[in-house]
Structure formats: structure tokens, C-alpha cells
């Protein structure tokens, strides 16, 4: 981060000012990250493979953060996140590649269809808890996969090969946007309701939390962003097929979230970045790669089940203490574990 901490005054009490300053630093930092990568890859310093890895990283960040909202924050285990991604990907491709609408329209359209999928799967399965919900979402994903496979309009089992329209800029800024929106959501009263549902659904309901509404909202928003990630995935990789969105892919997304720490947005980002980088490093050893990830998942559960970061969150104020908003008194979502 290329900002100068010296310019920030020692802590004063005008709390209302700080969110803006904090946002300014964040935006500046992001512009710098985006710009540096953009410049390096344009000028050829970062080769194609590294650029591609960074793009996949960005897509994985969106997937991990959106799954975390449903599974980590709200505590609803979903084994069909790739299905939401697939909905977004297929409908983005239909709108853009088949119907000729502009790419942003396709992307958002795909996200909306995925959000609708979240509503469809979220509403009826709310009666289910824990394992049953997990297996029902897995089933939902498999059903969709089989539907695509038999649907000739979308290329059947071969899938579609849309042009490459997504790039680093698209992926980076959409990742930033989804992280900001979900973070904001978790930090709001809605987020606290979701955490209450996670900790004890019956108690939450007893104290007046509208559990159904909050859970469905989490499903819709999580699915929407997964759909956006799916659209980016399809329009970056030149081709996709129904099996790109099977439950193994759902497991992979879950691994990102679990390794980073269920419930921690920062953790999901870290998980997505680390796993994507590891995968790229092991590109030439495909067999070993899969064994290592499975083993990592088991060991993580046995010895550090809260994930790399537990439920810690990273805030800018950790680097720039002057930015801390006094009235919040620390980060309620961070300190529990």
C-alpha cells in the first residue's frame, strides 16, 4: 500500500470523518494494486500464466466470499455453490453470446438468474437443517448439471465456447465490489441477525429475529455473486461444460472458505489467494495437487478447525490506528474465537 501514514493525524474524536478517510485509503490502495498488475501484465513483465492466475484468484475471491456469507456467517452448509456459479455462467453466455446483448448486461442477468436459483433452493430447503440442507443443495447442483447436459441449445455436454470478454480489470473491480458489499452486509444489523442464526437459530427466533427472511436474503445475495463469478469464469476461460460446475467444484470452493476460516471475510480472501497460488505452482503436477489439497483440508479440520484466520477480520485501522472508530469499540465479529 503506497499511502503515507504520516498524513493521518493522531487520533482525535471526530469519528464521523473517519469512514470517509478509511474509504479513501482503501480505494487508493485498490487502484494501486489494480494499476500495478495491469501495467505489469500489459508490459509483459507478468507473463500470461501469472496474469491468468491472478484473474482466477479474483474469481475465487468472489466465490469464497459469497459462499462464506451463506455457510460461514449464516451457518447454512451448502454443497452446491458451483451450481449458482453455473447458472450465472450459462445465462450470461445465453444473454451475451447467443442473444447478442452487451457483456455487462449478460453478467448481471446471469447473476440475477443465479440469485433466483438461490431463492428457489433457499425457500423450500429452509425447513432442512445441517446435513440435509447440504445434501439437498448438492442434489440441486447435480440436477442442473444433468439438465445442461441434455439441453442442446447450450451445447449439451460439450458446453459453450464464448469469446474472452472478461479480463483483469473486470474481475478485480467486481471482486472488490462483492467483498465491499458482503462486508458491509455482515457488519450491519442484518449481518448480526445472520450470526445470531448461526449461533442458535431457535434463540434468534425467540428474540425476534426474522430467521426466514434473513436466511433467504443471505442465500439470494450469496448466489447472486456466485453467478457473477460464474459469468466471469465462462467469459475468461474460452469454454466451459456442464461438468465445470459439478459438486467437486463446489467442494473446491468450500475448501477456500474453510481454509481461510468460516465466518471471516478476510479469511475467505486469504483462502482464495493461497489456494489459487498453490494450484498454479503445482500446475505441472496435477495428481499431487489434488492429494495435497485433500490432506490439507483434513489436517486443517483436525488441528486448526477455525481456519487460517478463524473469525478475525482485517481492518485498515490495524495499519492506521487513527482510523479506528471509537464508538464501535472493536470488532464484535472478530473477537469471539
Amino acid at each position, binding site marked *: 500500500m503506497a499511502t503515507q501514514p504520516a498524513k493521518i493525524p493522531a487520533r482525535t474524536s471526530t469519528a464521523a470523518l473517519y469512514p470517509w478517510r478509511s474509504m479513501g485509503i482503501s480505494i487508493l490502495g485498490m487502484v494501486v494494486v489494480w494499476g500495478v498488475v495491469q501495467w505489469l501484465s500489459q508490459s509483459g513483465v*507478468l507473463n500470461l500464466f501469472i496474469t491468468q492466475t491472478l484473474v482466477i484468484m479474483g474469481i475465487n475471491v468472489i466465490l469464497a466470499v459469497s459462499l462464506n456469507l451463506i455457510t460461514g456467517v449464516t451457518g447454512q452448509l451448502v454443497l452446491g455453490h458451483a451450481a449458482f456459479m453455473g447458472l450465472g455462467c450459462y445465462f450470461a453466455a445465453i444473454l451475451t453470446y447467443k442473444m447478442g446483448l452487451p457483456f455487462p448486461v449478460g453478467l448481471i442477468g446471469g447473476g440475477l438468474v443465479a440469485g433466483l436459483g438461490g431463492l428457489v433452493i433457499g425457500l423450500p430447503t429452509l425447513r432442512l437443517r445441517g446435513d440435509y440442507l447440504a445434501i439437498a443443495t448438492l442434489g440441486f447442483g447435480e440436477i442442473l448439471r444433468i439438465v445442461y447436459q441434455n439441453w442442446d441449445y447450450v451445447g449439451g455436454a*460439450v458446453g459453450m465456447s464464448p469469446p474472452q470478454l472478461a479480463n483483469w480489470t473486470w474481475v478485480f473491480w467486481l471482486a472488490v465490489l462483492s467483498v465491499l458489499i458482503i462486508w458491509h452486509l455482515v457488519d450491519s444489523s442484518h449481518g448480526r441477525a445472520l450470526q445470531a442464526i448461526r449461533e442458535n437459530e431457535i434463540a434468534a427466533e425467540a428474540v425476534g429475529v426474522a430467521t426466514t427472511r434473513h436466511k433467504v436474503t443471505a442465500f439470494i445475495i450469496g448466489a447472486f455473486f456466485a453467478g457473477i463469478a460464474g459469468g466471469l469464469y465462462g467469459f475468461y476461460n474460452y469454454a466451459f461444460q456442464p461438468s465445470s460446475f459439478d459438486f467437486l467444484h463446489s467442494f473446491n470452493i468450500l475448501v477456500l472458505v474453510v481454509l481461510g476460516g468460516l465466518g471471516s471475510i478476510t479469511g475467505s480472501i486469504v483462502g482464495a*489467494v493461497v489456494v489459487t497460488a498453490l494450484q498454479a505452482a503445482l500446475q505441472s503436477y496435477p495428481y499431487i495437487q489434488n492429494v495435497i489439497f485433500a490432506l490439507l483440508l483434513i489436517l486443517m479440520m483436525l488441528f486448526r478447525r477455525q481456519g487460517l*484466520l478463524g473469525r478475525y477480520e482485517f481492518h485498515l485501522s490495524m495499519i492506521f490506528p487513527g482510523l479506528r472508530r471509537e464508538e464501535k469499540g*472493536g470488532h464484535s465479529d472478530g473477537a469471539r474465537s
Partner: protein
Amino acid sequence: MYRNLRNRALASVGVVAVAALVLTGCGGASSGSGGGNSSGGGSASGGSIKIGVALENTGNAASYGQSGWKGVQMAAEEWNAKGGINGKKIELDFQDTKSDPTGATQATTKLLSDGVVAIIGSSISSPTIAMAKLVESRQIPLISPTATNADVTVDPDTGKTRQYAFRACFIDPFQGQVMAKYDLDTLHAKKAAIITDVGEDYSKGLAQSFEQHFTQSGGQIVDKESYTKTDQDFRAILTKVKQANPDVVYVPGYYNQIAQIMKEARSQLGMTMPFEGGDGWDSPTLLQNAGASNLVNTYYTNHYSSDDTSPAVQNFVKAYKAKYNATPDSFAALGYDAAQILFNAIKNANSTKGADIVAALEKTDLDVVSGHITFNAQHDPVKAAVILKFDQAAGKYVFDSKVNP
């Protein structure tokens, strides 16, 4: 408490960031220099030419990719023993496509980043289509040993030939056409049933072309069934086929499922009519898994036969046996051919620029293992197909006849 938390979080983030950078660096930079856009450049890195190979090493087409890779390696060794291409050694860079278009894109990107001048791959159609689109934007020539779908070399959206994509095998419709002709003329069949693997474009392509040519020339399709590669039990569909009582059954799938289908059709359902397919049947695994007695009266179209007496084939088979202690299948032969075609083109172009290699590839006029090859306007090779028939006495498939385009 709070300070402690902050430090730990910071430390974690820091460690992770460093680790990520290092790992990404390792992953991407193993080849050192070579920006993705360099299009090969005039002279490759100091006296060697780097050729990318992206084939299936894992996933459901792993067996094809592994065979093809053996053929490619053999061709490169032969050229290097003779001093390489115009005095430059061939250096192969292998990446796994994982039998999936996304994996193929990643493998190809890795190769492009490594600065290869041309790419051989992949052995199946869907991943190759993704690769063909990617190399087009980087002006790097691609030659696939065995991807038979028409869209590999022709963009279906525009109908134009993909400038940088070639293949060493004939395309799907040709195999279906050859088999239909053989059924009508040689086997005198009137009624055929078709069983398609709906999970594979390849299977659908062959089935479609077979149906078209068979019915055009007066035959009748009495039943059409389908399966997917996750199926384990085919008795349900075979029972229906049996009921339709066809003279021949055309099953243009891959050997994994064919072995099972033949076992069930012959031993369990007592179906004795000819079963036939395309080059997806070509694997030693078929005989091993189905058992010889279940393969009696089966035929398939193929790119070459190791029994062919032509010197090109016999020399290749001898060298392959010496090196790998096995009889080469078509995937090995076409891997070898694809490499030969590409190396010759680079030699004739006397350049490693993509456009120059493409120009030389288009002028290919070469005798290779699978026959005499020239390319048509769609970058598809013009060459003959062979029909193989199972010989119970010999316990293997033998050369039956050759069909020219």
C-alpha cells in the same frame, strides 16, 4: 487483547501475501523469460526450439493423451538424433489438460507463457476447441493429433477456417460415412440401430453422419439409444435395441463403455449381430476388458492399422515396440504424425514465427504413418481411413480394407 488480535491478523495476512507471491512466481516463472506476446520471435532461446504439448494426462481421456504423448516424444527424439530442426534441438514442454476445456486453457496459457513456438494438442475435441480459440489470439500454431470435431479448425460462428488450428486426423463425418458405406455395400445391412454417448460431441458427430449416409442410400434406422459416460449398466438400452432387431448396431463411443456394452450385449443378452464404431474403440483396454469372445463380429473405422505392410507403418511400429515394448495404437501413431507434420513445417519455413509455420503447414505434402497427407482449405487432412475387423483366431483387430475419401 485487541492489540494482540491485530498483530496476529496482520502477521497472517503478511505471511499469506508473501507466500502467494512466491508461489505464483514459482508457478509462472519456471521458464524464466518469455512474455506471452512474444509470438515465438525469430530465434528461439539459444539453439533450441521449444514446442508445447498439451494432452490429457488425467481425467477420462487420460489413456489417449498418454499414448499421444509417447508418439510425440518418439518423433522429437528421432529429429534430435538427426540434429534437430535446421540444427536446433527440439525441446518439449508438456502440460496436462485434465480432459477439460478449462484445464486445457490453463495448460495452453502456461505453454504460451513458457514461450513455445507451436503447440501439439489435445487428443479430444472440447478442450482442443478452447485451445484453438486461445492460440488464435497469440498467433501460435496448434496441431491436434486426434480431435475430430469439425469446429476444431472451423469457427462455427463465422464459418471461417481458424487460421492457426490444424489436425492430423480426418474429421468425424468421414468416419460415419465410411462405416455406413461399408454396412450397405459389404455387410448388406438394411436396418441399423445407433447407440450414442450423448456426453461426447464426438459420438454425436459420428452417429449423425452415419445416420445421414445410411438412410440416404436406402438403409433404415430402427432404434436410437443413448448413454453417458457415468453409466455402468447398459442392459436397459441394449434390451430395447435387441427388441428392434437391427442388422447392425453402430456404437460410436469410447472403449471404456464399449467394453461393458459388448460384454452385456453378447454374454448376457445374447445379441449376435455386428457391432461397430469409430476410432474411440481403439485401445488395448477394449480387448482386455471385454474379452475376445465378446468382440467377435465387431468392426471399427480407424486412422491406421499396425498390420499395414507399408514401410512407413512397419518402421514406426518397430521403433515404437523397441522403445515402449508395446504395439502403438492410433493415438500414438497420430501423436507421432502430428509432431512429424509440425517439425517438417518448421523446417520448411526455416522460421519460428507463427505465420511462417502456418504457411508451411498449409503446404504440407508428406508421407506419414497414417498415410499420405495434404491439408484442404479447412485445415483438415485429406487421407484414407481403414476398417478393422476383430479376428478371433488372431485374438485382435486386423486390417480389413482401406477407404479413400
